């Protein structure tokens, strides 16, 4: 196992990108969340931040599986000196036309609570869902 990368020490501003493609099935969500945490651990995130990230990534995968599409799940992780950006996507038409994540935690249904958690745990979240697929981009910054 390589030591965590401290960009502050190395002075590197290089972006590192890792992609993962998995079947859009519940049993594969654990692979995505553990992979994301392993990649994020290359920065100096706290254990609590890594746990938050794992949950947020899993919820993003759940959202993509639930909202639909007919393709596999893809996850692209980009490491920069001060942040990790994780884009989770499932291509293909929605199985629930017009499905949108609610903005608040009032809805205890899966999608609503899941997206509420993502918004609470991540620093920035961008969501889009249309006939080409469902995408969630999560950003977690160091020291926030």
């Amino acid at each position, binding site marked *: 196992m390589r030591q965590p990368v401290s960009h502050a020490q190395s002075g590197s501003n290089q972006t590192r990108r890792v992609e993962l493609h998995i079947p859009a099935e*519940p*049993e594969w*969500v*654990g692979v995505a969340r553990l992979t994301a945490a392993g990649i994020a651990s290359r920065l100096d995130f706290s254990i*609590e931040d890594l*746990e938050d990230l*794992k*949950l947020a990534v*899993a*919820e993003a*995968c*759940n959202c993509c*599986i639930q909202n639909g599409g007919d393709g596999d799940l893809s996850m692209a992780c980009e490491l920069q000196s001060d942040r990790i950006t994780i884009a989770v996507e499932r291509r293909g038409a929605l199985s629930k036309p017009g499905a949108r994540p609610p903005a608040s*935690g009032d809805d*205890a*249904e*899966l999608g609503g*609570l*899941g997206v*509420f*958690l993502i918004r*609470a*745990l991540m620093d920035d979240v961008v969501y889009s869902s249309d006939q080409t697929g469902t995408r969630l981009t999560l950003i977690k910054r160091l020291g926030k």
Partner: protein
Amino acid sequence: MDIKVDVRQTDGTHGVSVVDLNGEIDVYTSPKVKETITELIDKGHYALVINLENVRYIDSTGLGVLIGGLKRVREHSGTVHLVCTNPQIKKIFDITGLAKIFGIFDSEQAACASL
């Protein structure tokens, strides 16, 4: 990544069923937890203690299963109490506001005593 589910009836406390969960509760494993809780409720067990002491991870599907169980037992004037000391999991209950809905206790003894 799996979940182990065990059900016990406590001695000395009338009608309390304890569900011990061990592992991770996510979109893949939560159906197994839901099945167990549903079966208990269908059999008339409306005072439930769900022990999360050995749960390392829970996501919204797991929370949904617990919420669903609570809704169903409340229809019969029952309740669900949780045993949880894991700070990360307690944080999820706090963020979602579910800490105000469930009784969350540090020990099984305390959870059973409050039913």
